[in-house]
């Protein structure tokens, strides 16, 4: 009986695999990786930099307080004036800043990165492609 369940289950799973393979192959044709916008890096690149990365969370305080990338510093434009002081105290000049926001086009992260470059004249600031949605929780 139990063997029968698993036999049938396996058959169903394999049946689903066939159209999935076709659809997967078809999707790969056009689903080339989205090009990076200026100043963006992929998660894989940030990973390679390892400890040399200082994450900057450009999302809202509420979202940051709920959860964030470990050791990320909160800096957003809603509360820029009050956040920038503590941010600079914690900032380590030897690290590369990588800013992230919720996901999608990440306008907020780009704005924060731009302002770090323009107002504070800190170079080597990047934006995480895909934002928080791209973060894999490690």
């Amino acid at each position: 009986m139990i063997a029968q369940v698993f036999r049938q289950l396996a058959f169903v799973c394999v049946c689903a695999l066939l159209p999935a393979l076709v659809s997967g192959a078809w999707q790969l044709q056009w689903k080339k990786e989205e090009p990076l916008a200026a100043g963006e890096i992929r998660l894989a690149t940030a990973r390679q930099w390892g400890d040399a990365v200082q994450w900057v969370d450009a999302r809202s305080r509420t979202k940051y307080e709920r959860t964030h990338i470990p050791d990320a510093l909160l800096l957003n434009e809603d509360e820029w004036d009050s956040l920038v002081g503590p941010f600079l105290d914690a900032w380590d000049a030897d690290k590369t800043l990588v800013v992230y926001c919720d996901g999608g086009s990440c306008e907020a992260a780009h704005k924060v990165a731009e302002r770090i470059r323009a107002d504070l004249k800190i170079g080597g600031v990047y934006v995480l492609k895909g934002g928080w949605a791209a973060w894999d929780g490690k």
Partner: protein
Amino acid sequence: MHFRIPVFLIASLLSAASSHAGLVWDEPLQQYQRTPDDRAMEAHFTFKNTGATPVTIKQLRSSCGCTTARLDKKTYAPGESGEVLARFVFGDRKGLHRKTVEVRTDDKAAEPVILDLRVLIHDPLTITPALVWWKRGDAAGAKTVQLTATSEQTVRVKSVTSSNPRLPAKLTTAKAGEQYVVSVQPADTAQKESAEISVLTDFPIDSPRTYIIHARVK
């Protein structure tokens, strides 16, 4: 306060002409200039249902948590007008900001309309750079910060005060009301230091603004 009048409003006739029947927007793109003291602004996006059937607005989606969009009601009869009220809360934003609201209706054939609000939040005094810093062990040379008032507005800098005596700041007037230089020089760079330098101005008169220059020895 100041700069209350929209600098220029572009009536986007093109987009109005291209959307067949249904909702026709008077100004889907609006541009404004504001100052940080305004704190927030509201833009009215008016429209008219020029089609032969009622149109229901299904969804308004704004690009930023800082912008909210509101409607008085959802369904508009043929010939009826309405408006989407977009409210943008500046927070501590400066410079040019583009906030969009996507409007989806029950008209499946119509593409969603993007309402485009562009606001230049214009600070009458610019500070470059807002951060001066030294690495520990660096030569303790002075670093300067330029304070520049925009051409439209005279801003006098009255004083600068450092929160940390080991990172003193000195104000020099290059041209009163227009250009000032703040020079910051650490006593030494032997240890980590942190100072916020307050720049007191005379603008606006009723509640003069204080700007902050950050100084660090890292």
